[in-house]
């Protein structure tokens, strides 16, 4: 039930509470200074109003102690804002290792969501309450932004790469899902809803609807269809790096760098195969750019992940 004049958004994630706490801190600091400045202006304006045309107040040049005070106090206050904000930000982009993973693709003008179990939805996102959920987000065309005000999370969907966000819902119900980055004509129509359910209901919801194959299985099918398996299998003629257990592991490259095989790396390897060639292999893989949709790409990644468990190490080697 939504009121007709809400003044404060619902808090429906663990993150929302923490953001609001910071918000209150900033509100009180701002409120204090706004009141202070307004009060001083009113006070001076009345007390020191001009009483006669000829009067000439004594000049005051300035005061170093005062300047120091009103530089130092705001400095301390904003440093708290910085530190507090930064720690929240860091949290917002460090998902727990055991988070459920859901794939989101933005396109003009809809959100497409794939659950690992295979359930897909458009402009809706169903999640269980009390579990951390990690979203892997990309866009098929222009930049969009996945925004759930009740969770206080927002992340741009950038074409050509993956971004991610995570949350843990703390309240069941239906919440707004917006596109927050202007994306063309029907930008305002690129909205939907996030439905937070009890875990048991979520389990049930996953199983209802038209039966769909799990993401990894769909990925495996694509892996065969597109001919990937022709080279990337142990007994193939063309020598290509084996993919079993590759996910999350460091990969030595031809260029001498070492990268971790995370989603972005696998994605780049499929679309731009000659960008990061694995050491000891010939750069013979063709690009699949234009032959594969963003959703299919996510399915193949889910398949490759299913070939070997592991979470990616930090990618220390910058390109």
């Amino acid at each position, binding site marked *: 039930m939504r009121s007709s004049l809400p003044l404060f958004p619902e808090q429906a994630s663990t993150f929302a509470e923490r953001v609001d706490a910071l918000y209150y801190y900033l509100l009180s600091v701002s409120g204090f200074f706004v009141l202070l400045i307004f009060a001083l202006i009113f006070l001076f304006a009345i007390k020191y109003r001009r009483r006669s045309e000829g009067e000439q107040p004594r000049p005051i040049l300035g005061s170093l102690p005062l300047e120091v005070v009103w530089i130092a106090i705001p400095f301390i206050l904003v440093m708290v804002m910085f530190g507090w904000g930064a720690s929240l930000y860091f949290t917002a*982009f*460090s*998902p727990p290792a055991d988070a459920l993973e859901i794939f989101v693709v933005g396109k003009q003008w809809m959100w497409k969501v794939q659950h690992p179990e295979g359930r897909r939805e458009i402009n809706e996102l169903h999640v269980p309450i009390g579990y951390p959920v990690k979203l*892997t*987000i990309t866009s098929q065309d222009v930049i969009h932004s996945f925004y759930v005000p009740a969770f206080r999370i927002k992340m741009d969907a*950038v074409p050509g*790469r*993956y*971004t*991610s966000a995570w949350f843990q819902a703390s309240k069941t119900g239906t919440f707004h899902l917006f596109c927050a980055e202007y994306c063309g004509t029907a930008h305002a129509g690129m909205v939907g809803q996030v439905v937070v359910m009890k875990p048991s209901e979520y389990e049930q919801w996953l199983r209802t609807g038209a039966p769909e194959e799990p993401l990894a299985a769909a990925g495996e099918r694509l892996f065969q269809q597109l001919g990937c398996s022709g080279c990337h299998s142990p007994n193939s003629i063309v020598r290509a790096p084996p993919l079993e257990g590759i996910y999350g592991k460091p990969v030595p490259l031809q260029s001498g760098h070492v*990268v*971790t095989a*995370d*989603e*972005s790396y696998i994605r780049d390897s499929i679309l731009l195969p000659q960008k990061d060639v694995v050491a000891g292999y010939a750069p013979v893989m063709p690009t699949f750019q234009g032959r594969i949709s963003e959703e299919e790409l996510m399915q193949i990644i889910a398949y490759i992940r299913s070939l070997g468990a592991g*979470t*990616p*190490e*930090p*990618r*220390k*080697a*910058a*390109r």
Partner: protein
Amino acid sequence: MMPPIVLRRVYYWVYGALLALTLLTIGVAYLDLGPLNVAVALGIAIGKALLVMLFFMHLRYSSRLTWVIAGAGVIWLAHLLIFTLSDYFTRGWLPVAGW
């Protein structure tokens, strides 16, 4: 204050140095020095640019204000490059897709 007149000889010396550095940078480019290639090539380019600025553009004989202005241009360019690259070089540091 009008700028002072520089001896013509200075211009010829600088010219010679510029030509020599050009040959040097092309020559060095044929050697494989690994990551040093870039450093050497840019180092030589900076040296040449300094020669042109100091002597041909009379910076050496100019007011401090001119130095500040020229310096501001270079520093701002460096700032643009460094702050933009700070994003690209730190993207892989967090174990999360997209960073």
